[in-house]
Each structure stands twice: as C-alpha cells, then as structure tokens.
C-alpha cells in the first residue's frame, strides 16, 4: 500500500498532524502517573471522535474505578460510516499515535490487554500494523515492565471484522470479538463495567486515542486553545464528493461549512451531507453553520454535492445502505428502513401521496426513539433532512428528482 501512503504525505494540522516523536507520549504518561493523566485529559475536554462524543476522561475514570483483575482497551477501527476515511490515514501514517494512545489508556485504567478491531475491508493494512507492533515490542513500548516501569505490562493484538457496519457500535463490536453475531446489546450495562468477556472495557475511536499522546505532551490547556468552548481541540474531516481537493483535513472545531467548502475548492455546491449516511443533509441556506458539538456534530464525514446531483438518488443510496446493514434485531429498524427505501422508490416513480410521505416521516421519527441502537436511531436522519431541505427539487414543479433522475 505504499502508493496510498505517499499520496497522502506532508500533512499539517494543529494537533494530530503536528510534530511528534515516537515514544514521547508513553514516556510522559509514565512520569505523570495515573491521576495526572486523568486530570490533564479532563482539562483538555477531549470528547470521543467516533460520533457519540462522550467525554474521554469520564470513560477512562469509570473503568479505572471498576474493580477487576482483568480489563481491556479496545480501539474501534471499524470505520464504516459512508464517507469516513480518517482512521485509515491515522492507521497508515500515524500508527505510533494510535498505539501509544492505547498503551497510555492501558496504563491509566490498569489494563494489560489492548485489542485493535480492524474492519475486514482494511485487511490490507494488517501486515504493516503487525510489523509496527513488533517494533514497539523491540523498543519496550509493549511487553513487560514497559520503559522500565515495574509491573506495567501491556500488549496489543489485532482482530479483524468481516464486513458488517453495525460492528462499529461498541456493544456489537464486543459481541463480534466474543465470536457471536455482531448484534448490539442493551445498554446499560456499559462496556466500562461489563465489556469484553464481562470485564471492564474502554472502547475508543482511533482518532480519540491518537489525540491522547499530544494532549499529555503539550497539555490540556494547549488542546483547549483550539476549537470552541464546548468542542475543544481539532477534528479530522474526511472530505469527498464534488470538490477539487478531497482528502483528510485537520481543522479546529468551530469551522463553518462555508470555510470548509472554500478550503477544499468546492464549486456550485448544492448540498453537504455531514456525518455520513447517518448524518444530516444541509442545503445552501445552512452553510454558515459550524462544525462542533454545539451545532453540527459529526464523526467527520463530509460529502459534497454540486448543482448537477440528484438528491433523491443520493437518498436512495443511503437507504439501501441501511437496509443492508441493519442487523435485523429490532423491528423499528428492520422494517422501518425497508419502508423508507420503498418510499424513496415510490417518489422516484411518481407514485405517492403527500399523506403517505408525511406518515413515513412520522415513522422515521418513531425509529429515532424506538430503535435499539444508533443505527436505527440515526438512519432516518437523511430521509427526513433530504425530503425537507430539498423538497422543491424532489416534489416541486420541475420534479427533477422524479422518473428520469
């Protein structure tokens, strides 16, 4: 995969893409001690980058407080949200940050084992990641008495997924690691108490973990300087679709959609889908909105559509995705997504009433509250936002979204 690596070289950014020397973060962590790590992390305001935005320090504290002889750190590298590819870049170009984040997490909560759950689609990275782990073992960043710290033993192994988007949901991921169908569990109990094989487990996104070494080295206050009050630090955005410069960008939280569009040289933009298929679709009138937990929250997928695109076709692509990827465990999601896809097809064929469409939007709202996991809770987002924000295109007199679209 050399070609992919070189294509993406020479990155720069405020946090993740700033200077870093391998081993620095772990060394600093061991000097600081557990309490100070948690303190610094809390001070940084770091929130989970996998989408849900749960405060990382709180998650680590809860599992540090759990009494158990066995604990686990799981790095969630299932990256399957359509339009997301930032974890790919971190794993290929910055494995030191990801793995050191896991080692630091292990030290902080008292875990001896780390697992990287790598989506099956990324199997081509397996060899280079395994080789990198070997290097870390040689440098005593993994193994027994890490960097001379007595009784700090930690190692990491990599487990592959097998092509199921829902396994990115943390409890489904744990089911999958345990050798079962990747069906989400009811929460509570949460993985921090009852996780892998029943032991306390921290599940963090690749980007969350990769941020930790930088925070320890440069401090929580430094991290806070980037971003906004509620959304501290920076974020990796995976940008694809209609623009001159697609790719991964590290930007401070608080950047507006307009600013981002300018940066990636997007022209004649009609719509921006933020957050992947489970996210929302913004029309031009909302491009002033800013990326951050207080406004447009996202795991970082940005898909750009220009004036020539048919938004109904876009929506159909998303709904097909959910019908395929629903685990089928609960009715609102299993049946609901099929109904929403059916509705898109009916609109395409000009075979619908507005009463029917309104009923289906209502169904979407029911799914948002009644589904068991985030998949079914968020799959109606595109349906509702596209049909509402692009109603002129889809239902208007020009009816561009109909029949021959």
């Amino acid at each position, binding site marked *: *995969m050399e070609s*992919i690596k070189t*294509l993406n070289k020479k990155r720069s950014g405020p946090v993740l893409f700033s200077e870093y020397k391998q081993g620095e973060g772990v060394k600093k962590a061991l000097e600081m001690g557990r309490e100070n790590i948690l303190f610094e992390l809390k001070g940084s305001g770091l929130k989970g980058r996998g989408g849900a935005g749960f405060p990382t320090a709180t998650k680590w504290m809860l599992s540090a407080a759990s009494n158990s002889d066995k604990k686990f750190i799981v790095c969630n590298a299932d*990256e*399957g*949200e*359509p*339009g*997301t*590819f930032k*974890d*790919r870049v971190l794993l290929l170009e910055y494995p030191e940050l990801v793995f050191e984040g896991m080692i630091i997490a292990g030290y902080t909560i008292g875990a001896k084992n780390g697992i990287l759950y790598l*989506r*099956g*689609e*990324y*199997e*081509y990275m*397996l060899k280079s990641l395994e080789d990198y782990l070997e290097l870390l073992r040689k440098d005593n960043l993994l193994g027994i008495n890490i960097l001379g710290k007595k009784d700090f033993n930690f190692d990491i192994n990599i*487990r*592959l*997924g*097998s*092509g*199921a*988007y829902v396994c990115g949901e943390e409890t489904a991921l744990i089911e*999958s*690691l*345990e*050798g*079962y*169908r*990747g*069906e989400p569990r009811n929460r509570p109990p949460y993985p921090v108490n009852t996780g892998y*094989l029943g032991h306390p487990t921290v599940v963090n996104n690749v980007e969350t973990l990769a941020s930790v070494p930088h925070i320890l080295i440069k401090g929580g206050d430094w991290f806070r300087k980037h971003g906004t009050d509620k959304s501290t630090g920076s974020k990796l955005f*995976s*940008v*694809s*679709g*209609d623009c001159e410069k*697609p*790719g*991964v960008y590290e930007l401070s939280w608080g950047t507006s959609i307009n600013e981002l569009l300018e940066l990636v040289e997007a022209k004649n933009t009609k719509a921006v889908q933020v957050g992947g*298929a489970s996210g929302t679709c913004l029309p031009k009138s909302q491009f002033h909105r800013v990326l951050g937990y207080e406004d447009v929250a996202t795991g970082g997928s940005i*898909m750009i*559509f220009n004036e020539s*695109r048919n938004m109904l076709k*876009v929506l159909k*692509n*998303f709904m*097909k*995705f959910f019908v*395929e*990827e629903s*685990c089928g465990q609960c009715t609102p999601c299993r049946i609901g997504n099929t109904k929403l896809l059916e509705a898109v097809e009916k609109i395409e064929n000009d075979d619908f009433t507005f009463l029917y469409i309104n009923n289906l939007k209502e169904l979407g709202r029911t799914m948002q509250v009644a589904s068991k996991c985030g998949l079914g809770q968020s799959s109606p987002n595109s349906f509702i936002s596209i049909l509402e924000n692009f109603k002129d295109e889809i239902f208007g007199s020009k009816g561009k979204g109909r029949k021959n679209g």
Partner: protein
Amino acid sequence: MLVLEKNALSEEIESLVNQFGKDRSALLQILQAIQRKHKHISDFAQQEVARMMDIHPVEVNSVISFYSFLYSEPKGRNIVRLCQTISCDMLGKEKIEEAVQRELGITFGQTTKDKRITLEYTNCLGMCDQGPAMLVNEKVYTKLDPETAINILNSIK
C-alpha cells in the same frame, strides 16, 4: 467431498483450533482463516468447527450468515468487491460496473464458469477521496477507470 479431502480439512481445522484456542471468542478468527483459504465455509467445515469447539452447528452457521465476508456457499477463487456507496458512485462506479460485467460475462452476485472470479458489491471502503474503489480479495484498488479495472481482473489467476 472425497474422504481424503475431508480428512485434510479436519486436520486443518484442528490446527486452527489449536492455534486460536477453543474459546468461543476464537470462532470468528477460525472462520476467517477457513474463508481465506477455501473461499467459503462448507457444511462439513462448519460441523467440524462446531464439534471441535463444542458449540452447536446451527450457532456456527448463524455467525457465518451474519457477516457479509463469510460464505457458506462456494465462491470463485477471487472475490472482487466494488464499492457501491455514493462517493464512488459520483466518481464513475457505474462505468466500472458495466465494463467488468461485459468483460466477464456475469453480473454482480455471480461467479465466472471457470470459478476464477466472484463479483460482489460492497459498501464504503474508506477510499472515498480516491474512488471508484474496489477490493480484490484483501487488496484495495483506487481511482479506477474501466480499462485499469479490467486489466486488474485479467491479471488475477
């Protein structure tokens, strides 16, 4: 299946169980290893896994049926998966689709008569900035145009 082949497969599964362990948490890894080598997990293989790991064969089958990269039916020697998600679609996925179907004389979901290639669709491969993208077994190819896609397919055995 011939008795000899069955014995060989049993031995192979036994060594996988020894390698990964008998715990339920090893199941997916064992199934992935069988899938990688044989391109599917046959009824017999499923029974053997179940027997050696002390779980019900129905359980093994239900795990296989859940994951889109595991198959209980025979597939081609190479599995080609074209990304069908929107970013690749906008970058010309349809042209690749048409070209490979024409070249191989099969449609997606089918396997060539000589069992060389199975064509499948897959969802976002995390290469949306470099689409259209496709996987050939575990290898990823990006920025495809019809000609390169066909050259890639023609070069695999």
